[in-house]
């Protein structure tokens, strides 16, 4: 065992010296290789963390939301639908929800106005999301004035700012009283944006939704599962889109790496010939080349992954922000919680380290089994 380790160390010594004889070429390869791993790992870590966080925080969203559809569009739903749907087994609570959008021309941003059920607000009072406070430059006690649909201006006193820790779900929220919400948007008493149904047993959700569509055919139930699936699909799709966009780059790298790893230069061919002539065995030459591939690919994997980790979880994925942000004026400031999928990490390791190492060995094996004299000529 000791002899084996000693032999490997000599081989590594030799391989490193050989790599350092062509520093520009090998360093260039390492930088490009690491950059590719960095991009792939960043997308992977970012989407997985965001997907996990979405799944975790939205797990407490309403079990069923019932929207009324008129001519294929979401419309206000009368409160009488709560009685009309009757008693459904498994439903332990039902009520109307009031929320809507408001476009603020001052900062060209869309806000989500909402009536909270967990607190009582005075008519002129508003609780705002941290991103709105930041964008509008307001703090507690300041006033926000908006022009409503009837042309009147309404002032809201900012009584609190929602915790910045929960910005991911509340960045653009403005919580107002029911009275003010109805006056502001001109929504008559007894009408809601949608209805919320609480169901105790998640297994009964589908059955409840079926009953709802039978009893209220002009409505559309949205289940919590569907909400969670929407976000799963979005992040899978987006990860897919980024990978598709990266395909060109990856293919260019694969060609470059394959050419570098599998195509032997005359110099390398001569080197193998000399090694064989001075007594190296074929297996030693292959081992030496294995180390060459392993040194480069392992370094690229580790460097790429570590910089990606820093980028996503310490630099807030700065490179991806413009993609996610789009034209949003209000964008939440959030620090992602690192959720790492071991299988994803192993897949990345396998697909970055294994092919390159194999690609270096095969042509060497071909060259190494030929006669040294032929190789050197």
């Amino acid at each position, binding site marked *: 065992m000791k002899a084996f380790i000693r032999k490997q*160390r*000599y081989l*590594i*010594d030799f391989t*490193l*010296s050989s790599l350092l004889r062509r520093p520009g070429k090998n360093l260039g390869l390492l930088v490009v290789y690491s950059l590719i791993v960095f991009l792939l790992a960043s997308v992977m870590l970012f989407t997985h963390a965001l997907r996990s*966080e979405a799944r975790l*925080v*939205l797990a*407490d*969203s309403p079990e069923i*939301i019932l929207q009324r559809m008129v001519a*294929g*569009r*979401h419309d206000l739903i009368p409160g009488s639908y709560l009685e009309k749907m009757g008693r459904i087994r498994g439903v332990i609570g039902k009520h109307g*929800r009031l929320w809507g*959008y408001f476009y603020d021309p001052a900062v060209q*941003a*869309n806000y*989500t106005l909402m009536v909270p*059920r*967990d607190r009582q607000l005075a008519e002129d009072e508003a609780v705002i*999301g941290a*991103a709105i406070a930041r964008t509008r430059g307001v703090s507690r006690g300041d006033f926000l004035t908006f022009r409503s649909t009837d042309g009147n201006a309404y002032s809201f006193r900012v009584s609190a700012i*929602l915790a910045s820790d*929960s910005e*991911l*779900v*509340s*960045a*653009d*929220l403005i*919580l107002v009283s029911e009275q003010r919400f109805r006056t502001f948007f001109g929504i008559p008493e007894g009408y809601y944006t949608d209805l919320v149904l609480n169901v105790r047993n998640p297994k009964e959700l589908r059955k409840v939704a079926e009953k709802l569509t039978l009893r209220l055919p002009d409505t559309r139930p*949205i289940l919590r599962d569907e*909400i969670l699936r*929407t976000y799963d699909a979005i992040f*899978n*799709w*987006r990860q897919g*889109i980024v990978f598709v966009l990266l395909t060109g780059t990856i293919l260019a790298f694969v060609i470059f790496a394959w050419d570098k790893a599998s195509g032997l230069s005359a110099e390398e061919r001569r080197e193998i010939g000399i090694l064989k002539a001075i007594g190296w065995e074929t297996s030693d030459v292959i081992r030496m080349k294995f180390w060459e591939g392993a040194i480069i690919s*392992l*370094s690229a994997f*580790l*460097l790429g*992954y*570590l910089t990606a*980790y820093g980028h996503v*979880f310490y630099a807030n994925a700065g490179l991806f922000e413009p*993609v996610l942000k*789009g*034209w*949003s*004026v*209000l*964008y*939440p400031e959030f620090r992602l*919680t*690192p*959720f*790492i999928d071991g299988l994803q990490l192993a897949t990345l390791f396998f697909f970055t380290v294994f092919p390159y190492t194999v690609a270096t060995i095969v042509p060497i094996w071909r060259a190494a089994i030929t006669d040294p004299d032929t190789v050197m000529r």
Partner: protein
Amino acid sequence: MRKSDLFILYLGTLSGLLLLSLVDAGNRSHLATQQLAETRREVRALELTDLSLFTEARYTRHLSQSDRHTPFQDHPLALEHFPSGSLVAPPTLLRSGR
């Protein structure tokens, strides 16, 4: 120092950092438990349904609540042009190729 020693040291350091990143991830997600619980409480109390990641258009703000055709609500040819629209997956039926 031999080159192989330096290499082993270098590889050891990077592998150590990789392990450290896993420990850091575990540690940070443990520390974030409180904050995530707080966010969940807010989601439950305010009955929220979506992440406020895409606030640029009203139909991208609540992706789970909006209809597929909402980008075209202004008029039938009002083509969807907001960047985040391109991040939304097409319906499953289209993706399954049927």
